[in-house]
């Protein structure tokens, strides 16, 4: 690494054609090699430390498949592809398609990838709440082999994730969900489209034959250093009948669990109030869907 460098001037660009080759290249450039997917964060930030770019868009990690285990999404799949994927229009998976439709501009959605979005690990990442609500499992590949990470253990801090330096995120796996699963995604920015979230939320729940909630997930983004599950709010609904007053109380509890900051997009107070409002709306929508 050249510590005197003050501008973005990578000296190398590689486009490997297989995962093994990509990992090999990263090993060779372990000090200053960076994986490049859509590039839509990299070319905004233009980090001066980037010396060697390893383009991972030619590795065949561009797919959305479903089978009796659930759904598998290649890490280099673009948001434009996720937004219109027939597989992701169905059932609770739809919240991921909705998040994809609301991410960035149409131009950015044609480039930005889901793997890049979560590996960049910013608090406002739109795909993160949906993936947390859907209990995503992330597949990481390194020379040592493959390992699976639960998305709940992936986000460590702002721009910090649990991948090791020698690992490549290759696939995002979503489990099967039973009938009577409901889910909802709501994003609020300062303007209707093309903005980072002030707050985004994704919820998911199952309503069983005795009219009680199970598998409740309430997730909020842009309100803490990492996308956050409001675990106490989830517990309030677990095993309970989902009626209006309880949903409202759970939303109030969820707003208590977040740690928002004030920034250029919103004050912390507004984020708290907005979180309560959109979590309640999302819960009402998810309950209606689960009963449909």
């Amino acid at each position, binding site marked *: 690494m050249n510590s005197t460098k003050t501008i973005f001037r990578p000296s190398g660009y590689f486009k490997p054609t297989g995962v093994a080759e990509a990992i090999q290249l990263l090993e060779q450039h372990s000090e200053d090699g960076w994986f490049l997917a859509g590039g839509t964060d990299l070319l905004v930030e233009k980090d001066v430390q980037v010396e060697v*770019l390893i383009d991972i868009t030619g590795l065949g990690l561009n797919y959305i498949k479903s089978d009796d285990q659930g759904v598998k999404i290649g890490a280099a799949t673009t948001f434009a592809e996720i937004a219109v994927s027939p597989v992701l229009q169905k059932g609770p998976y739809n919240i991921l398609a909705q998040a994809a439709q609301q991410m960035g501009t149409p131009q950015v959605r*044609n480039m930005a990838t889901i793997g890049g979005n979560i590996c960049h690990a910013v608090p406002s990442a739109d795909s993160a709440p949906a993936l947390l609500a859907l209990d995503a499992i992330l597949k990481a590949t390194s020379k040592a082999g493959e390992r699976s990470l639960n998305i709940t253990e992936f986000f460590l801090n702002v721009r910090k994730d649990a991948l090791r330096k020698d690992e490549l995120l290759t696939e995002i796996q979503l489990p099967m969900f039973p009938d009577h699963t409901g889910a909802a995604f709501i994003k609020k920015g300062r303007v209707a489209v093309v903005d980072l979230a002030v707050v985004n939320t994704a919820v998911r729940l199952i309503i069983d034959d005795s009219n009680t909630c199970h598998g409740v997930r309430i997730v909020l983004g842009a309100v803490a250093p990492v996308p956050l599950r409001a675990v106490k709010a989830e517990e309030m609904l677990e095993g309970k009948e989902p009626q209006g007053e309880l949903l409202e109380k759970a939303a109030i509890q969820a707003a208590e669990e977040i740690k928002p900051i004030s920034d250029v997009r919103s004050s912390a107070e507004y984020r708290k109030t907005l979180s309560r409002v959109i979590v309640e709306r999302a819960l009402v929508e998810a309950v209606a869907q689960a009963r449909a």
Partner: protein
Amino acid sequence: MTTITLNVNDNEYEVEVAPHHTLLDVLRDKLGCTEVKNSCNQGECGACTVLVNGKPVSSCLMLAMQADGRRIITARGLAQDGKLHPLQEKFIEYGAVQCGYCTPGMLLAAKALLDENPHPSEEEVRMAISGNICRCTGYQQIVEAIMAAAAEQ
């Protein structure tokens, strides 16, 4: 420097590029495609929109090397055989051009929409150009021009 091949408006070019060169840099500075506008240089404004394999992208956010071997259309590639594209005709007819800086990007975002969805609703038109900022705020005429071009298809 590495040599890459770009197909721009149906012409093949071999160009020498460095890893940090964006597609926008190369189109403007090496190939003279000054119809591709540079404004925010961070993917917010849409002025640098080009079609890459038919899809609108921000050329400021794509490295030139990522575009190697791809088919690129700029606003200059819209007219065919000396005849303006129907979208260009309608932009003129409806007064959808004020300062003109956003126009190349707007036209390409609109073309990508109509290629995929020949009869869009007004809402779909507005969503399709949501990544293109018009500093003169003349959106109404732009939307009307695109709707009119769609109606005549």
